[in-house]
């Protein structure tokens, strides 16, 4: 069907366009099933962690974890543990509990009264497969789940094609991970809306830009609870897309924070 030992597909998921490119020494059927597996992996993340879906596992936690401990999946548990660790290492700059500020500004759908939510990441208790909020609050994985989904998709492609895989790229609205990034470039939309070409310095990149909203980003300072003004597009290259996605928030708030270096990230302003 494709005759090029490759497939490129694009679907709408996670509120954005998800683009998958695969080159492999494989037939059409295998290429198709590898791309299906990648999209399915992203679907699973969306179904579990969407803030916008009132029926997602995340919405169940947000609606009732302040009343009693809520059992969560392994995916949820692992991601939340990882996020809390990064919150600690970034001195609270990365914080999945900034959702109430985004709710108040209309950037997230308000399923529940936001003004009743005052807790932060320190109010989260994880115990025996359950999550409990000591104070009413709301989690939002919007700053990390897209990157995680991209990692899962690349993993699904690698598992489907194993040694036959030559090159693969998954791009979810600018959160990009490649299998084999050697000599690859990526176009980054800079502060003037021009496209600037950057080398893929590591396998994953995520960027945060503010040109589209008068310089106001969707990144909130966890202490001030205000959206951050940005002068540049901030791109973070890292060893996986979840990390790149999450660290863009830290880089926007404090470009010199030690966690960026400690986690092996490279930051480029454009």
């Amino acid at each position, binding site marked *: *069907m*494709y005759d090029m030992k490759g497939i*490129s*597909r*694009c*679907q*709408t998921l996670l*509120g*954005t*366009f998800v*683009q998958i*490119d695969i080159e492999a020494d494989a037939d059409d059927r295998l290429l*198709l099933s590898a791309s299906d597996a990648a999209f399915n992996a992203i679907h699973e993340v969306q179904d579990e962690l969407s803030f916008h879906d009132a029926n997602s596992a995340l919405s169940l936690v947000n609606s009732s974890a302040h009343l009693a401990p809520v059992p969560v999946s392994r995916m949820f548990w692992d991601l939340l543990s990882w996020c809390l660790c990064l919150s600690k290492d970034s001195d609270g700059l990365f914080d999945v509990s900034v959702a109430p500020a985004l709710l108040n500004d209309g950037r997230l759908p308000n399923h529940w009264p936001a003004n009743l939510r005052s807790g932060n990441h320190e109010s989260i208790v994880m115990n025996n497969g359950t999550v409990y909020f000591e104070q009413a609050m709301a989690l939002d994985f919007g700053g990390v789940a897209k990157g995680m989904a991209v990692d899962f998709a690349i993993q699904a492609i690698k598992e489907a094609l194993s040694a036959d895989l030559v090159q693969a*790229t998954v*791009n979810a*609205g*600018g*959160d*990009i991970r490649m299998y084999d990034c050697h*000599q690859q*470039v*990526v*176009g*980054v*939309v*800079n502060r*003037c*809306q*021009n*496209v*600037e*070409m*950057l*080398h893929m310095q590591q396998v994953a*990149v*995520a*960027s*945060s*830009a503010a*040109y*589209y909203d008068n310089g106001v980003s969707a990144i909130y300072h966890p202490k001030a609870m205000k959206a951050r003004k940005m002068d540049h*597009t901030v*791109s973070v290259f890292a060893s996986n897309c979840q990390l790149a996605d999450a660290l863009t928030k830290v880089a926007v708030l404090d470009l010199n924070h030690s966690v960026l270096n400690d986690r092996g990230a490279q930051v480029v302003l*454009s």
Partner: protein
Amino acid sequence: MNRRHFNRQAMLITAGLVLGGQKVFAKTFLSAAQAKQIIWPDVLMEAFEVTLSKAQMKEIKSASRTRVRNNVIKGFKAESGEWLIIDQVIGKHEFIDLAVGLDAKGKVKGVEVLTYRESYGDEIMNPKWREQFTGRGAEVLVLDQHIKNISGATMSCRHVTDGINRLTHTWEQVLQHV
């Protein structure tokens, strides 16, 4: 200098360039026939074309709360009632081509983006220029030869969601009766 070294040098020189002015990023993913193979792999289908009347367009607009720009609906249809509609929506500035599969009950079976286009560049900062440009396409440099992936751009898929909603209502109002 061997070829590999030359390529590397060329790449290093190319990377870091800023592409100023207005540019269109366009990437074709699948042909309509390939999308059909993915969404309806074993279903025998024939090409169809339906022209909507003004009254039908008005009904669809009212039901879907989405503007109906084109009065011609095209794609493939199976005798058993499955549809594959080839449609266009306007993204932020440019047209995006879609294939939308609807089953015999009008339920969405699958959606594939066929061609994604978007504009970047200095001129987009100017709202008046942007307004004039919207929906008219662009005769400018196509970038997909050089850049296969873009980061740092807002890429909301709301327009696609609206387009799918419009097509399900088009089935409801018109196609199911054809």
